[in-house]
């Protein structure tokens, strides 16, 4: 089976040849090429080259075209700070006063240099790799983008205290996000990761999510011309899973601290589950620990398809050694081949 066939089978809640593996490696590509992160992202050829190499190296089933979340902020006129050993961060939020929201200029995707690089990298991967594996593009959801536009604290104030300005901002962000998602699909992305940490019950209560993030997700996803997977970036999802299923998304991420068996059970038939290895702890795993974690995860969530093994945040940290990624891949190949007959005799770890 090709990776595309493997993933396509799994997302239809059938068992392919093995559990699909998704290692979301973004700034990590700079390490692969032995260049600085700033240099890496300055040329889309670097990203395309690294993605092709890393997918082969780690036997992952996806290409991942996320540069860094702040690439969208750059399009809006904000900035990014480049680190030596990690993804670039957004600079100080560029909306300084709530009233500035009324005068926001919505960036045009095809006129934004930072976004054009992502589109070029996507196109290059598509030209080289064709349909052998899905290409995953990323958008920060309209509802989560203000975390970088305004700052987390001011954004919560806006939601509670300035509903009119909140609505104006959401309208502007939705227009941008839909254009951005569709531009990536036109360039060759198979699936869009809808990055929406603000909607997680870790951040806002469900009652507020239903009035805000849920509605925005439903409207936005309906206008994206391809499938989406909703990611909460290490945030909880179980208590809103049924709601997320109604937004039109095809998949949901799961975190380590929520019972993946329960997530899978609730999601099965409605949403694919992606997760849930802890990327921060991963830095110190031995080969044996990586194998145990992977095996346990497959035992809990692999049966019946509808599951993609991945990390729980949406980006593997720079600090994770290559050997750990290879160990994860080896373990998926060892334990992830369907049918998972060994699971019936497996002793679950507490």
């Amino acid at each position, binding site marked *: 089976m090709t990776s595309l066939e493997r993933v396509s089978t799994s997302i239809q809640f059938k068992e392919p040849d093995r559990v699909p593996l998704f290692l979301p490696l973004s700034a990590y590509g700079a390490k692969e090429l032995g260049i600085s992160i700033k240099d890496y992202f300055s040329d889309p050829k670097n990203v395309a080259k690294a993605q092709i190499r890393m997918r082969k190296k780690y036997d992952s089933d996806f290409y991942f075209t996320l540069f860094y979340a702040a690439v969208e902020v750059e399009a809006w006129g904000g900035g990014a700070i480049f680190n030596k050993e990690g993804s670039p*961060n957004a600079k100080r939020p560029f909306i300084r006063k709530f009233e500035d929201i009324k005068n926001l200029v919505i960036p045009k995707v095809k006129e934004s240099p930072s976004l054009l690089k992502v589109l070029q990298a996507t196109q290059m991967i598509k030209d080289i790799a064709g349909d052998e594996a899905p290409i995953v593009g990323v958008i920060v959801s309209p509802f989560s983008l203000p975390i970088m536009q305004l*700052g987390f604290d001011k954004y919560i104030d806006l939601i509670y205290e300035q509903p009119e300005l909140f609505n104006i901002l959401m309208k502007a962000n939705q227009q941008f996000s839909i254009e951005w998602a569709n531009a990536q699909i036109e360039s060759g992305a198979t699936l869009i990761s809808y990055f929406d940490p603000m909607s997680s019950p870790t951040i806002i209560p469900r009652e*507020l999510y239903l009035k805000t993030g849920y509605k925005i997700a439903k409207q936005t996803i309906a206008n994206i011309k391809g499938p989406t997977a909703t990611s909460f970036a290490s945030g909880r999802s179980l208590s809103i899973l049924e709601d997320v299923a109604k937004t039109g998304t095809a998949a949901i991420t799961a975190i380590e601290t929520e019972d993946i068996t329960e997530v899978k059970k609730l999601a099965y038939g409605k949403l694919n589950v992606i997760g849930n290895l802890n990327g921060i702890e991963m830095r110190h795993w031995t080969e044996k620990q990586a194998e145990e974690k992977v095996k346990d995860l497959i035992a809990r969530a692999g049966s019946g398809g509808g599951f993609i093994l991945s990390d729980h945040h949406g980006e593997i940290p720079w600090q994770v050694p290559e050997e750990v990624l290879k160990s994860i891949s080896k373990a998926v190949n060892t334990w992830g081949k369907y049918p998972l007959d060994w699971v019936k005799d497996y002793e679950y770890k507490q």
Partner: protein
Amino acid sequence: MDIDKKTRKIFEQGLISLNRVKVKDIIQELNDEWTPSDIVDNLITPVLGDIGDRWEAGEVALSQVYMSSIITEELIDSLLLTKTPIKSHPKMAIVVLDDFHALGKIIVYKALRSAGFVLEDYGLGASVDQLVRRTNDDDVKILLISVLMLPAALKVSELKRSLPNVKIIVGGAPFRLDKQLANEVGADEMGTNAFEAIEIVNRLTSKVK
């Protein structure tokens, strides 16, 4: 004499549901027979602690934790105290290291203010060098550091080497996701939720001169 459980529960519910009127009423009633210090120690601090625990357990959301800290700081400022601290303690400061995500810092800052502490706010996006200079210039003895991303968390080890006599308390997502990380970077203490900072600072201020 303790403030009764029912009052504490109603106060907690008032904070979580952002009912400023309800919580203000409770404080005003208690103001008649309790000192500000007693209200802070027997109501505000333990209730914020409960809210922090409930956030960790997934029962309340971070936005409710944030708004609770805003409301309790408003109460402290308007009803209980002027800017005069009710606790005496070594000099403290709080900062976001390396990036601009302020939420965790704001919650901890307001929680500590609500508990009667006064601390310098060193803002956002501080580099290690800037922080070392400022901490030494201000003779800070306890430094609270909030981070969102792993690379920033790893810089704490460099900070600790440069400030060996300063107690460093860390908090933020990377430390919650990897419980060994705080030890790895040499932090003195780690808070898994913002309101744990109150308990940690209470403990440290009795030891640090």
